[in-house]
């Protein structure tokens, strides 16, 4: 993380006018990709993700199949034009890691043992990035899985927290992410409060980490509500 002399919080307001515990404008739509078994579009401020689910479907080649459960495969991908300087197409090391933690974030919500020998493929496509892309992608994946009619213990709610200008905040935008003292993306199952994604980088005290986790679990309820609304709107 880089340093800046610029103040990121002025008079209690963040660069985009939010208060520390405010989430950006959220837009969520379900069923946006007709070809997919389930799909969603999720936007937090400018950060925009599509997710599509294909499956459960037969896994080929067969030697990759698991006899007693479905394989969950997750792919996180960014459009070349989603960032300031064009990104070369294809996954880099960061995308490989995010794909892995995304799979771990989603897996506890599913009953994979119900679909032996199949694969459930979750594709996340970030078409615009302004911070917090991995949690935006997980929210989209959560909706796409529900849209696909895949049985779930609960929706997966994801939100980032962090610290800027000595203040704990949630839902970091890109500039806040670049200059933050900490960035903590979290995903959880709201009913049981099980945390399925937890990463952190920065330099903050253990207490601040704990507080941030608590903040996110609380503010995540708003995201949960939006997810449920989006699913309801699908069938209006």
């Amino acid at each position, binding site marked *: 993380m880089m340093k800046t002399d610029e103040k990121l919080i002025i008079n209690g307001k963040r660069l985009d006018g939010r208060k520390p515990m405010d989430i950006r404008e959220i837009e969520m739509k379900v069923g946006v*990709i*007709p*070809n*997919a078994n389930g*799909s969603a579009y999720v936007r937090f401020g*400018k950060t*925009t993700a*599509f*997710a*599509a689910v*294909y499956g459960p*479907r037969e896994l080929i080649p067969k030697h990759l199949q698991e006899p007693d459960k479905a394989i969950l495969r997750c*792919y996180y*991908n960014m*459009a*070349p*034009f*989603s*960032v*300031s*300087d*064009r990104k070369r*197409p*294809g*996954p880099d090391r960061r995308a490989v890691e995010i794909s892995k933690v995304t799979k771990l974030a989603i897996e506890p919500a599913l009953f994979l043992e119900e679909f032996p020998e199949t694969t459930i*493929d979750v*594709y996340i*496509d970030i*078409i*615009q*990035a*302004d911070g917090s892309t991995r949690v935006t992608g997980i929210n989209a994946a959560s909706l796409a899985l529900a849209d696909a009619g895949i049985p779930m213990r609960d929706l997966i709610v994801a939100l980032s927290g962090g610290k800027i200008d000595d203040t704990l905040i949630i839902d970091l935008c890109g500039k806040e992410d670049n200059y933050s003292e900490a960035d903590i993306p979290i995903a959880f199952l709201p009913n049981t409060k099980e945390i399925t994604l937890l990463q952190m980088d920065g330099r903050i005290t253990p207490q601040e980490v704990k507080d941030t986790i608590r903040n996110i679990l609380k503010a995540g309820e708003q995201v949960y509500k939006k997810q449920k609304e989006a699913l309801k709107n699908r069938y209006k």
Partner: protein
Amino acid sequence: MKEYILNLLEKNKRIDNRKLDEFRKIEIQKDFIQRAEGSARVKFGSTDVIVGVKLEISEPFPDTPDSGILRTDAEFTPIASEDFFPGPPNENAIELARIVDRGIRESETIDLEKLCLEKGEKVWGVCIDIRIINHDGNLIDASALAALIALTTTKIPKIKDDEIIREEYSGKLPLKHKPITISIGKIGGKFIIDPCLQEENLLDSILTVSVREDGKICAMQKRKNSLKVEEINKIIDLAVNKSKELRKLI
């Protein structure tokens, strides 16, 4: 289903009630991606394509030291179809990118000579990235239209100390021409435009034609089986004609 579609066509009808030479409902959304210097999302029915244009400081080619550079890529993202998978672009994605690229390059859409920053050293590189969101046929025409519209929305970023200042702009990307790309399919004795995926799979042949506003042809590509000369001639005329209709949407 195959028989059903063919029988309908015999009666000049299509499964979605269109006429043979009728486009699906076309939706256009400009400036869809604020991070990009230009962008557009185009839907032909449920075919859904996003194009983003990024500008980069690039080295010119040695044989055109004072011209900007154009580069076109396409990703068939696996979100768009059960038949698309992660991995580098396959031959279909490469073909699509190259056909769209040729339409823009050969028509001289972009005034590349105005994109020189420092002769022989630095020019603007215009990167067109095509992203398929949902595949229901006729990807090429939708992508070409989205690319052209994205170019019309493209702004040139400011430069300070040899670095690009993103999201501050010095002007619009200079364009000279506007090519429209139309693919016309042959099926039985009929010619149809804007085939949906189910139709596309049944086509006997298909020819893609890019037409400039002055009526000149700037790119063509036959993409399946074979065609007779008189069929090609008919398709060219039809494409020139239908291009006017699509051009109104820009």
